[in-house]
């Protein structure tokens, strides 16, 4: 979470600096450099921690990992598919488009030839342990949120490596292509974080506390469906309005030039009304 916040913050800062640098405002060189300095290690660590968490999840929530790969049958060694068609709704075999051999074993177990237990076998294990029921999360959401998160995470890392290389060559403020892409790359960390959140929450279903309490058992007895619809609609409405206003304000403030130094001195004299 901390790393994801750092990545998001650095990407936003980089985007604003890039927009300003494209308009020749030299004072944004330092912030651009600073965001690269934060972004490179943060995105690299995020990938490392993410893959380590994958290994931990295989032990504690194996369903989550098997579903993220739509792996219905147990495999050893396991390959990782870049794209696939089908295989989401039931246990039909998916058409895997491009497979990278051994990669799933590596991601899920940390070893070259590790075994990943398939969804069918896990389902049978859970039925034996917790009684009859469907213990497989939505595989389609799981598979694609995993892909979106991992691909965007890698993309952000490669992008920051490119930025770091440009900075090392002292070409960061003048590389038009990089600055243009940096401005428009701002949605990436948001999509990446959302996909990661969906991966972890969806992958735990039907449990709200793994192995202890099902989501269906956590529903309040006195809260009606109508009340839930009212609250969800209200929050949806509030947040849509807030997103629009927030984007407008952030664009307006992001496009401002820095205040001239003498204005700063003036402000210090009388206590400013900040709010």
């Amino acid at each position, binding site marked *: 979470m901390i790393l994801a916040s750092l990545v998001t913050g650095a990407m936003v800062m980089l985007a604003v600096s890039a927009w300003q640098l494209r308009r020749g405002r030299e004072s944004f060189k330092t912030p651009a450099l600073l965001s690269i300095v934060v972004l490179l290690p943060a995105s690299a660590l995020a990938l490392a921690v993410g893959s380590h968490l994958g290994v931990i999840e295989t032990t504690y929530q194996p369903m989550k990992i098997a579903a993220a790969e739509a792996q219905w049958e147990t495999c050893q060694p396991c390959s990782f598919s870049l794209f696939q068609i089908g295989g989401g709704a039931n246990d039909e075999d998916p058409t895997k488009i491009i497979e990278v051999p051994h990669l799933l074993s590596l991601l899920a177990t940390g070893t070259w030839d590790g075994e990943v237990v398939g969804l069918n076998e896990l389902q049978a294990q859970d039925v034996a342990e917790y009684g009859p029921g469907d213990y497989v999360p939505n595989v389609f959401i799981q598979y694609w949120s995993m892909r979106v998160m991992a691909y965007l995470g890698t993309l952000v890392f490669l992008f920051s490596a490119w930025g770091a290389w440009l900075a090392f060559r002292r070409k960061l403020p003048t590389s038009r292509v990089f600055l243009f892409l940096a401005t428009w790359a701002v949605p990436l960390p948001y999509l990446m974080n959302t996909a990661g959140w969906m991966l972890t929450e969806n992958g735990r279903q039907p449990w709200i506390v793994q192995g202890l309490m099902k989501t269906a058992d956590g529903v*309040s*007895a*006195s*809260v009606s469906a109508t*009340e839930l619809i*009212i*609250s969800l609609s*209200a*929050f949806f409405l*509030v947040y849509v309005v*807030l997103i629009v*206003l927030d984007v407008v*304000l952030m664009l307006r*403030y992001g496009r*401002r030039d820095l*205040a001239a130094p003498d*204005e700063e001195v*003036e*402000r210090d*004299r*009388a*206590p*400013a*009304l*900040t*709010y």
Partner: protein
Amino acid sequence: MNLADLWFVIVAVFWTGFFVLEGFDFGVGALHSVVGRSETERRVAINTIGPFWDGNEVWLVVGGAAIFAAFPAWYATWFSAAYLAVLLLLVALIVRGLSFEWRGRGRGDQWRWSWSLCLTLGSVVAPTVLGIALGDLLAGLPINGDGVFTGSFWDLFTGFGLWTGLTVLLLCLLHGSTFLTLRTTDDVRRRAQRYGRILGIIVLVAVAVFAVWMVVIAQPGVVSYVLLALAVLGTLAASIGLLRHRDGLAFIASTIAIAATVGSLFASLYPDVLVSSTSSANSLTVAGSASGDYALTVMTIVAAVCFPIVLLYQGYTYVVFRHRIAGPAPQAGHSPETGAVAPSE
């Protein structure tokens, strides 16, 4: 005293602390358009609570979280029963919180006017909803033998609950006036004093009725009687302080009044935490709704370590921003627009 009782006291302290702190910033938020006639004066009023309101609001989060962790059964029944009320509270707190951050960041009178409205409404709705919810604990809600709320949204509006909501709102307004009197100068201070004096009389009536009503429905013990007496005396002393231009005394008095009022609710509630109007046998109690000993022990240790640290840094912010706030000097040439760019925290 066992751990469950200790945590009931801690919960009461958190909620009382919340109303003492957030009480004045609710009051300032609700009154800012009235005590400030010009744009600068309104900003002066908002800036008296600018650095504090979000820290104060954390007390509500902690108060709710303490109930969740220490009394899960109480939390489940109370918050589920008040589902739509909690929604209303959250929306009020969201638009109120945003108005601090965004009011000075947009362009035009319409923008500022809209956020001033949000600040006023949020600051009125939030304490009222919370007051009603607290009053309901004592007045009783329809709860069956499984601890499940069986009523509808409209059952939340009990007579005593509504009166508690009104009393708490009025106390927040009085508390806000004494705070503004203490923190501002010139016209804003004079207006806050004037409104505070008028409010003092109304609050006195409200608190007196609240005290009698509580005695009638709850057969409270000695602690409650002492607290109710303090609430009435505190309100009286706040009015006298405002009349005699003793700003500090008035603020301390309104602090005692609001703290004693909220405290008396919890004192009268014990040993119940949520009264059932269906049958007294269904009422949730401190002992019956508490977590296990292990959880409570861990929480006690965590609270003993963290609470003093939080108190220290929150106290420090009040020391840093202790000076009275006046508008910018006329010759400085600040327009509200340019003054808004300064970073907030």
